[in-house]
């Protein structure tokens, strides 16, 4: 299977502090890949590095093209959607505006309308709240809104930063079910960063484990899941 995203020798810096050391991984076309690791291992930084939101070095190839160093908004326009940590809701805008903003460069109004309807198939609850101020949504709804907004970009690759964060277990399951559907029905490849390793390994086909800014293990999820160290450190049994 061809790789959609190829990362190699990736270093990232916050000021003088280096937080990634030669990280390398591939994301297969159409697959779901997860990035596991403890707090501070560099998971979020890796996602931020892909979108040039931190200072980086190395190569990041998307669909064969080097995107490292491009401005964040230009990377997004290559159809890489990043659902950030903390959801990045536009709290003072309505749900409708939060979604439409992702399509603001498109001229075809009907196409945007169709797109909205398509997104509401996955998130019917957002449709009920369409004119509500986004800051008043529940945490789960805001997470759904963030994923829906990413979908409006018609992404080929979706980067998700801890979509389960701070949510009730049932909501988390619902969101993960939706992610699987999005992956299958929309042919969106997914790179998932998660604290909840068990859940992430169930969803993903491939997994990488980060420790203090380095990849220490990788492979198909099934293999990673059964690894002694991963089990003890991340799955807790």
């Amino acid at each position, binding site marked *: 299977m061809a790789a959609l995203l190829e990362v190699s020798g990736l270093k990232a810096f916050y000021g003088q502090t280096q937080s990634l050391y030669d990280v390398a991984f591939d994301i297969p076309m159409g697959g779901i890949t997860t990035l596991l690791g403890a707090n501070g291992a560099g998971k979020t930084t890796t996602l931020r590095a892909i*979108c040039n*939101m931190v200072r980086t070095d190395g190569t990041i190839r998307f669909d064969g093209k080097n995107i490292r160093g491009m*401005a*964040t*908004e230009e990377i*997004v*326009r290559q159809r890489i*959607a*990043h659902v*950030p940590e903390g959801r*990045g*809701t*536009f*709290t*003072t*805008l309505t749900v409708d*505006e939060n979604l*439409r*903003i*992702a*399509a*603001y*460069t498109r001229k075809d109004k009907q196409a945007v309308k169709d797109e909205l309807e398509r997104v509401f198939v996955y998130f019917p609850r957002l449709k009920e709240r369409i004119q509500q*101020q986004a*800051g*008043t*949504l*529940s*945490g789960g709804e805001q997470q759904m809104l963030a994923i829906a*907004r990413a979908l*409006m*970009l018609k992404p080929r690759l979706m980067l998700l930063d801890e979509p389960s964060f*701070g949510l009730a277990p049932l909501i988390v399951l619902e969101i993960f079910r939706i992610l699987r559907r999005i992956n299958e029905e929309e042919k969106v490849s997914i790179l998932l960063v998660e604290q909840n390793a068990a859940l992430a390994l169930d969803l993903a086909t491939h997994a990488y484990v980060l420790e203090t800014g380095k990849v220490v293990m990788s492979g198909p999820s099934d293999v990673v899941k059964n690894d002694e160290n991963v089990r003890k450190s991340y799955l807790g049994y």
Partner: protein
Amino acid sequence: MEQFLQQIASGLANGAIYACVALALVMIYVSTDHINFAQGEMAMFSTYISWQLMSWGMSFWVAFVLTVLISFAMGVLIERLILRPLHNAPVLSIIVVFIGLLAIFNSMAGAFWSYLIKEFPSPFPKAEFGIAGVIGPHQLGVVLITLIVLGLLFVFFRYTPLGLAMRAAAQNPQSARLVGVRVDWMLALGWGLAASVGAVAGIMVAHIVYLEPNMMGGILLYAFASALVGGISNPAGAVAGGFIVGILENMVAYGGNQLEKATGIYIIGNGEKLTVALIIVIFVLTVKPAGLFGRVVVKRV
């Protein structure tokens, strides 16, 4: 009674000007968290440009439209060339740049056009405009033009994709980048729009205060008061604040005059208008720091 209505009417006209400048301040504030102290001087400079265009023989409205466009370009250029390199600079550096811009525009205007006070025409015909005895043609025209400008801005921000992108960029720049919005350009556009709105205010007020390099000094203070009264982060509030301050200052002077007539004691009058405006600022900041219409952002986690 007629005098009372006159005072309200002239308060509305002044308020319209304050509302424009306050809106310009708020537009930059919401996207950068900075108050552009040079906003008034930029408006003054724009007004000189329109005066120059008219003295070259253009009609008022042609000069008006051209000036608004030139001011837009000027605002965009200032942001791109001067403020862009300072995006990550400490607040104080940026304040120093604003004050520098203020001084530069002031002395450039003085150098190009001299400090002599110039008369500035009003475009509104006496015959068809105004309501005799209550509101003069120019005052009514100022209010109308302001309302048109505010209406256009409202439609732009509320109903166009670009307006939405600008609001998104102001509210959450990082998220805006992540949906492909070119946030830096949105900032520059915001500067352009603010400069344009300021230009409208300058051209409208110049007939009343006459054209000279310091004409916007007091107005900027009133506009600042308006923005704070209405809520510095709320454009609609700033506009409402403009009208409130405009009417209030006239009411203070009017009330003082009536009091003097009745009792013979002078307590407050025209001379204290600006003082009153500043007292309003301090009062609002103490009692209601977010302003009368300041948005308390509702947030659930």
